[in-house]
């Protein structure tokens, strides 16, 4: 389907253009707390990242340090988090598993304000086998496809650090996320072109497929509308991405079920 729309947008090839501009942003300080927290069914110390927004493109979130962060599992169990390292804004739970069928409450106290959010997970569907194609120059690219019936996304971490193509000092890894939200959106159908991501043979690909609940789907759909889907020929009104955090918070607290696997890219004859 997307192929068709690529052809359709050829209509603009002879006429449209894009260029870099130096237009200063009308930035302002916002007293917002950014929450990035995805608990999963993996037994681990789960991270809850707290930060402040930043004012320049490609900036880094200013850590929100010194917060009290607690995760409560179904009114039964309380997981207190620890900021590690101190000053990083990364808060880790004790080792835990966020399971399907339970509700989780995130509670944050920060600079005299309280924030909370509630989330639960849905099951994840199996992943099909990883597919990849040979590209030019002996490199490879992932073939990203929809899978299953429910909304999900797959996080691909690709590393070629152990290959001869990795030059000293270079960052020989990459991360892609393929979102499959099962929605029909014009801006998604006509989304702008994405860079090609190529890697050499013998790269290691770690896949993690996340299930997406209804509320998380709404959030991610908005995130994509403002990021990967923004800049095509059929954009929608710019709006703030919704959140499940109480007033003053942005970002999202989600619980997902995750499947993962690891594949080594084999050179194709």
């Amino acid at each position: 389907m997307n192929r068709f729309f690529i052809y359709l947008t050829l209509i603009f090839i002879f006429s449209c253009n894009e260029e870099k501009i130096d237009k200063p942003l009308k930035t302002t300080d916002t007293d917002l707390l950014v929450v990035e927290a995805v608990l999963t069914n993996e037994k681990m110390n789960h991270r809850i990242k707290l930060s402040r927004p930043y004012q320049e493109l490609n900036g880094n979130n200013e850590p929100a340090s010194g917060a009290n962060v607690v995760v409560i599992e179904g009114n039964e169990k309380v997981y207190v988090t620890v900021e590690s390292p101190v000053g990083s804004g990364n808060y880790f739970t004790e080792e835990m598993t966020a399971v399907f069928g339970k509700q989780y409450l995130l509670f944050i106290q920060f600079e005299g304000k309280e924030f909370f959010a509630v989330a639960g997970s849905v099951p994840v569907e199996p992943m099909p086998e990883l597919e990849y194609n040979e590209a030019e120059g002996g490199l490879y690219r992932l073939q990203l496809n929809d899978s299953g019936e429910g909304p999900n996304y797959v996080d691909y971490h690709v590393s070629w650090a152990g290959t001869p193509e990795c030059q000293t000092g270079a960052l020989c890894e990459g991360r892609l996320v393929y979102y499959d939200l099962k929605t029909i959106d014009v801006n998604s159908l006509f989304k702008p072109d994405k860079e090609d991501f190529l890697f050499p043979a013998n790269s290691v690909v770690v896949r993690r497929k996340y299930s997406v609940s209804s509320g998380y789907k709404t959030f991610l759909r908005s995130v994509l509308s403002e990021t990967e889907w923004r800049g095509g020929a059929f954009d929608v009104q710019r709006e703030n991405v919704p959140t499940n955090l109480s007033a003053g918070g942005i970002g999202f607290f989600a619980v997902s079920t995750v499947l993962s696997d690891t594949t080594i890219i084999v050179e194709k004859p």
Partner: protein
Amino acid sequence: MLIPDKSVHRLGRFFSGLLLLLLMAYSSTAQENFQNARLSLDFQSISLEEALDIISNQSGASFSYNPRKIPGDQKITYEASEKTLIEILDALSSIASFEYETVEGKIVLKPKANNPERQKSTLSGFIKDNSNGEALIGASIWIEELKVGTTSNVFGFFSLTVPSATYDISFSYVGFNGLVRRIDLQISQTQNVSMQMAPALLDEIVVTSFEPQLVSEIQVSKTNWRPATISEKPSFFGEPDAVKSLEMVPGIKMHSDGSTFYYVRGGNRDQNMIIIDDAPIFNPSHLLGLFSTIIPDAVNDITLYKGSMPASLGGRLSSIMDVRTRKGNNQQFELSGNVALLSSKLSLEGPIKKGKSSFLLSSRVSRVKWIFALFNDDIKDFQFHDLTGKVNFDLSQDDKLYFSFYNGGDKFLTSNNGIEWSNRATTVRWNHVFSKRLFLNTTLAAGVYDYFLHTDRSTQTKWNSHLSNVNLKGDFSYFKNPNEEFDFGLSIGGYNFNPGNVSRKGSPIPPVVSVRNSNEFVLYGNHEIKLGNHWSLNYGLRISTWTNEGEAFEFVFDNNRNPVDTLFFKKGDKYKNYQNIEPRITVSYNINDNNSFKVSASRNVQNIHLITNSISPFSSFEVWLPSSVNIKPQAANQLVLGYYHYIPNTGLSFEVESFYKEMKNQIDYEAHAETLLNPLLERELRFGAAKGYGIEFQMKKEEGRLRSWVGYSYSRAKGKFPGVNNGKEFNTFYDRPHQVNITMSYDINLRWNIGMNWNYYTGAPYSSPVSFYNFNGLEIPVYGQKNNDRLPDYHRLDLSATLNLNKNVESRFKHNLIFSIYNFYNQKNALFVNYNKTEQQDGGFKVPSNLLDKNTVSTQFYLFQFTPSIAYNFKWK
């Protein structure tokens, strides 16, 4: 479920009564039809009694008179050839000094009263272009001696009632030779007037002896232009475009380059209606909006109302573009065509019976497929087309029948998927002149719009949104005298809405979005009167009833917009109706023949709503919904104050209008609303208010060697919606305060014409980020106030040159070449500003894939730069 409303029934009874009265009036007139029988008489000094007997025998009319008051033996001499009974009686009444009236089917003669007010005659008829028989719409008929006049209506019909006498009567129309006829109006007369197009002259002569329409008409915010005006304007890819020529009009904001969307006086784009011969066109775009559907070649006249529309028109808050197609040359066959870079046009017209009936067929087909086939051999269909046709018949002096249709569409299909949309419109019209003062136009019009997204052509799986409308209406015009006119009528129509559903081989696939049906009944009246030498008044009322009808289902939402109930309506069940009253009034003060002030107040209501949160300039997956359980009718109140000035003998006119418009029940959207395949679509809507205000200046010169439209406007457009922008007022996308439009055309000599067009407007508002944050590796913008920033100002210069290839201007084969340059100085006018792309080695920009790389930049996306084109046009007759 029926939502009853007693007032509906009362209104229904009221309408029924009024309809009955109208039918009785029609019936009464029908009884008198014998008066219109045509007779040929030759009375040579015979008695009045004998003359009446002869008339009675020939026409079947029965006469009654008192011989003591009207001597039956008085001798009369009179000749008539193919005259109506009324014409004959008018003449005899003058000769034998009597008056007459029809009483219960008999013609009763009475002695002539000594009252000069009663001695009036009416001149009526049609004004046409003598070369092809086309109606001249808005032509002036003027009696200088009385300082009274009128204008022809959209069918070219006019009626002027004045004291019986002989007058020099002037007929004039822009671009045509003026005509003065000495007409004996001792008796009422029907005279059809044929006017001749003015030859191309290089002398700067503009002579007018009549009161300019701009000054004299009791109408504000109206712009009228003819196809020639559009054709003379430099055009994109050599395609003259009726919709895009709207950018010449102050107060109209085009969306951007590459778009047929436009915004009028602070109103959203769905508040504008385009009608072709009264049939609506719901999506006037081709190639996603690069071109519009309206081919100037098939158009006779375009009138745009930006406010205070005549009561006969309605259904939209902001504007109506009334396109009247040509009926075809009824004198001789004519073949014309055009070859431009992306499309070709061909038109054929000619008489079916010379002078009585004619036809017109005009088509356009694109030639873009081959361009795209170069990139992809999987393309199966990649084209747009238009076909416009009209047939008309003069059934009699008093009856004319027109049938017109439009069929246009776009197809962009590969072997297994693609998109497709189409507009179809059909109109059947019957014009009937009941008497010299009463005119009826009956119209049956239908419009159908479909949009398809084919997802799997092999299984016929497709998404379809649909909107159709059929409407029957009767428009009466009664020309009481030159100073007074009544227009009234009624219409009944139905709508069918499919807000987008997916089907496979015709069977629906869930989720199913409810299809809706609605009916509309409209009754209107308008009275225009001149009060003395300076003051004039035009007031009217439009009453409409909007009713929804099953089969459908509707959701009920709680205050948090959660669905709490579903209402199911069986086929034929009537539910949720709205009654709307739309008054309007315009007062005009003519300082003198060339200067006037006008003030107008009007209310408009709209019951069909475009549901889209797209900011794209291109036509996309749009759905429409009716006013119903969850959507109230949109309403607007507008106040206009204007000054109009005409500089005699120059052709120059100047107008300034200020306006203030308040709109309620306006629609905005939940953030990132899901508008496709969402059964709970109405939950995504936010309702609020909007307003527009501003001042518009325009100077026009439409005759002479140099012709131009120059306009400037300062206007604002604001919105305020609970739940949007924290409930605070914000600038809407079409708030572009300053706007300048200059269009000029100059005849260098008889073979060369040059044209230019320059547009400027303040950049459109948009929301730019005030900060960012990261989530899952993506950089997400945070917005502050809605539309807190603006795109760079827009400006563009287009140039054109037309070379007439004929050395002999009398040649039957005429052809020319049009060279045009769109965006001459290569201005990069931004459509969007993006913050999420990285620069590629080839200079392009793409969304990054690797989330570990952070090197996005700000970019602007723009369309057409310096775009030269050439088009060849020909006409043979």
